[in-house]
């Protein structure tokens, strides 16, 4: 049985909400399970996501048609290999405008490619409105929100704020203590390898804290993936 090819757009219209962290975690989740994955970094000025995964990511400039071809033509290849797009906040409008203009979502479904939007939450009303615009434009679009408690805390009204988002699922990325979080800045640190074989020079405390932080996140990705599988399963329809 052929599986649908998942294409994740990790996005937010605002900066510093944790988009690259989420894209990185998702990529490492697949790598930790030995799944071949491809990444796309739409920040052509400072492609941080691509720095973490230089061998499996490509940097695309969505302001140019050539960059759009490099991204979308590749995303439409139904090879069962998950593809992750780190959407730079300055590319957000351009990305979805292009998706609408070229009819990407419709074509993707026809080819067995399942686009999934992972929308990074923040406390502003405009972010929730942007998510609403996407869902109104494409009602069938699979959308989940990611609440990064470290990068973009929602405060005491988090439930009210999250309720504004028209998403069918939610991921929570717990907050990390500052000294632990600093370890994540190292572009040579592979989170997928950390699970199996932690770097020998790493502090035992940092190692344990990162593992404890990663495992629940990966579990959420896994259950989301299973849910998608079940939804698309012919025998359950």
């Amino acid at each position, binding site marked *: 049985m052929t599986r649908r090819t998942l294409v994740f757009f990790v996005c937010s219209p605002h900066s510093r909400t944790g988009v690259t962290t989420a894209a990185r975690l998702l990529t490492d989740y697949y790598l930790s399970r030995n799944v071949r994955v491809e990444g796309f970094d739409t920040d052509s000025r400072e492609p941080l996501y691509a720095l973490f995964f230089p061998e499996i990511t490509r940097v695309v400039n969505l302001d140019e*048609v050539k960059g759009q071809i490099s991204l979308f*033509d590749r995303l439409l290849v139904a090879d069962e290999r998950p593809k992750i797009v780190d959407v730079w906040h300055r590319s957000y409008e351009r990305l979805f405008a292009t998706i609408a*203009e070229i009819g990407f979502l419709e074509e993707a479904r026809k080819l067995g490619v399942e686009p999934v939007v992972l929308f990074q939450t923040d406390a502003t009303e405009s972010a929730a409105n942007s998510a609403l615009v996407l869902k109104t434009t494409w009602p069938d679009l699979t959308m989940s929100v990611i609440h990064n408690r470290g990068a973009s805390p929602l405060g005491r009204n988090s439930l009210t704020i999250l309720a504004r988002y028209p998403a069918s699922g939610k991921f929570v990325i717990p907050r990390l203590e500052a000294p632990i979080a600093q370890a994540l800045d190292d572009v040579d640190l592979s989170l997928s390898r950390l699970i199996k074989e932690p770097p020998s020079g790493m502090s035992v405390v940092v190692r344990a804290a990162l593992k404890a932080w990663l495992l629940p996140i990966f579990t959420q990705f896994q259950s989301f993936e299973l849910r998608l599988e079940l939804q698309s399963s012919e025998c359950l329809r």
Partner: protein
Amino acid sequence: MVKKPVKVTRAAPAKRERESRPRTAEAPVVASNGAIRPAVIVVGADKGGVGKTTIARAILDFLSLNDIHARAFDTETPRGTLHRFHPDETMIVDLTEPADQMKIIDTLNSSQAKVSVIDVRAGGLSPALQALDEIGFFDAVKSGEFRFILLHVIGSSISSLEEIAEIAPYVADANYFMVKNHVNDTTFFEWDPQTHAKYFEDVVTSGEITIPKLSELAYEQVELCGAPFSTFVANQDAQGQPAEHSFVLRGYVRTWLARVADEFERVGLLELLGEKRR
């Protein structure tokens, strides 16, 4: 002497009414015997490089997508650009040659294609209209034998705008559409209200067609492909074989073609061709 467009008083409501309801030829689309009258669509401009052939290609795609059987004549001799993209339905002709005039006009009634599209080469519009006038084509249009639609592609130069007055004597019985082709990011003096008003606001047309911009890369890829826009969108080459055109570029062309079709529909082209009831 060149006629200038007639100045009319700027009365907003009257002008809006004229724009929203295109002026159409008086004779009915269907002849007294119930048959659809043959239609001639001339796409032209005296100025070169304004996108006449692009418009002619879009028209042929639009007709084909609406199941309207059409034939085309390319006056760019000896090597026609339109013929390159639509070789099966296009014949290269010289409109000033009687033999070629006969190929077009004398076969209007007998041809299976009830719509004939003529792509007039740069600088050839006025002579072409003059030639059609001399052979009595416009008299036949006036008497209701044929329908005549003129798509006048406007460029962004004053000389191009002055063509509007030059061809005015020939468009009395035509459905005359001005086409603003933005495919290459052209402007039409909208930034200069005085110049824009002088040439555009007072001319009586059946409507104004705006061709939207198409990504340069997408346009160039269709050029390289050498096939109709719709063939490119369907991911086929000029021979109809499966191709590997970029989806992004096909998407841009598909959206552009749909917008152009919307424009043709908006001005009532299908109604003029008798394919849609008013």
